[in-house]
């Protein structure tokens, strides 16, 4: 069994930032990621980020990832990075089992930060398993990492920021986006992203969803249907669209499995995307010395993932008596940043979600 002071599971923005503050505080860190490179969701994001300047807004996602990764270079004597390494299990005695190229291993760290991010939800409709139907993240991976086009003519399901941004990225790569479907009566994502698509002539059809996909071996066309105010299909409103790919962007759900496995106190909060852990102000879970940060605590944004990572990194290090020289000042700063990120009308859903989570904690 291997040991390390701090084990961080997941090298997205949350895990990378957590590594940075914990290393600054003097801890010894092992960072594992199941992917063959660090950066999490960020490495697929070619657009300039929204959010606060402090968390690199107006910078392209992939550039933010590079920056966070280079920040760790100074610490190679105390940092071990294991790529292609998946955490399979988390046990109550804080043992983590991993697999890397068919080799199983166990790690017993003094503290753990789980920063596994989120996974894409899928949508129930007839023939939703036909080849050519992809999650939005898959389409991004295919295009932006491997330079391969998902198809020639595509329809996007979901007009949240991800649906809108990926539609734009598809057009940049040379794909024709025939329509964006949105079941709700209003567009989910930010107006800037929607306007960009509209200017390029992409129709965004609200109160409309996909009813079924049609094709023998691969998707050939879809049938769309209009929804009434009770989300019921309006008979006679069906329409066909020919496509060779369909992209589903209907939201993300926290990757809670490791936490659930260790019987950590969890709560279902729809505003946060699904099952999320109860956490203290320091982002520690109900299991001693197991911390969390990023989308796994509730689906938000890279900016908040970075700040949560910073806090979790500092607090996990503190738990092992590694005090960051400026801990108090930066903690206070990060907490204010989080509040700012969640303020305003866009942060309303997150504030409600976090409120519900807190209420439940008192009851539970």
């Amino acid at each position, binding site marked *: 069994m291997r040991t390390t002071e701090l084990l961080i599971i997941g090298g997205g923005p949350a895990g990378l930032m957590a590594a940075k503050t914990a290393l600054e505080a003097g801890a010894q860190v092992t960072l594992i990621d*199941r*992917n*063959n490179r660090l950066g999490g969701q960020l490495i697929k994001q*070619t657009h300039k980020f929204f959010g606060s300047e402090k968390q690199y807004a107006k910078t*392209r996602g992939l550039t933010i990832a590079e920056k966070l990764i280079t920040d760790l270079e100074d610490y190679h004597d105390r940092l071990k990075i294991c790529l292609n390494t*998946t955490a399979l299990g988390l046990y109550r005695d804080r043992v983590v089992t991993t697999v890397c190229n068919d080799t199983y291993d166990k790690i017993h760290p003094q503290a753990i930060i789980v920063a596994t991010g989120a*996974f*894409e939800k*899928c949508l129930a409709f007839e023939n939703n*398993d*036909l*080849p*050519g*139907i*992809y*999650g939005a*993240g*898959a389409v991004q*991976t*295919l*295009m*932006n990492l*491997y*330079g*391969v*086009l*998902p*198809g*020639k003519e595509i329809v996007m399901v979901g007009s949240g920021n991800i649906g809108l941004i990926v539609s734009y990225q598809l057009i*940049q*790569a*040379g794909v024709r986006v025939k329509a964006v479907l949105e079941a709700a009566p209003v567009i989910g994502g930010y107006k800037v992203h929607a306007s960009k698509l509209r200017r390029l002539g992409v129709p965004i059809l609200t109160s409309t969803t996909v009813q079924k996909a049609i094709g023998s*071996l*691969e998707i050939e066309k879809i049938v769309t249907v209009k929804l009434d105010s009770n989300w019921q299909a309006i008979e006679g409103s069906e329409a066909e669209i020919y496509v060779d790919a369909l992209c589903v962007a209907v939201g993300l759900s926290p990757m809670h499995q490791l936490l659930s496995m260790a019987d950590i106190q969890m709560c279902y909060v729809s505003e946060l995307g699904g099952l999320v852990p109860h956490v203290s102000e320091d982002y520690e879970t109900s299991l001693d010395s197991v911390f969390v940060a990023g989308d796994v605590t509730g689906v938000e944004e890279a900016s908040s993932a970075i700040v949560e990572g910073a806090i979790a990194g500092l607090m996990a290090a503190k738990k092992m008596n590694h005090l960051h020289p400026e801990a108090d000042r930066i903690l206070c700063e990060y907490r204010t940043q989080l509040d700012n990120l969640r303020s305003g009308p866009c942060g309303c859903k997150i504030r409600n979600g976090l409120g519900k989570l807190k209420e439940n904690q008192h009851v539970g």
Partner: protein
Amino acid sequence: MRIKQHPILDFEPKRPILFRYNNQEVIGYEGDTIAAALHAAGIKVLSFSMVEKRPRGFYCAIGNCGSCHMTVNGVPNVKTCLTMLEEGMEVVSMETKVK
């Protein structure tokens, strides 16, 4: 189909890699996963479901869903969306249950 021109990203030509898909020769490129190389060659159907024999393509491309399983060099249930392509690989569709 591969991206030829992109306003932000550069896709430089890479070393071609020859492999076999269901006994047919296919060319992929260095840095491709198996699923990406097949997709670029126009192959979307990776396997068939065990009972209903419904065609299966990849869905998540990051190892979450298992929709991209194929037999690779004789090993069944390999996630082709994560496995990097190698010269001479034998990639075969799965259709029946593995015993």
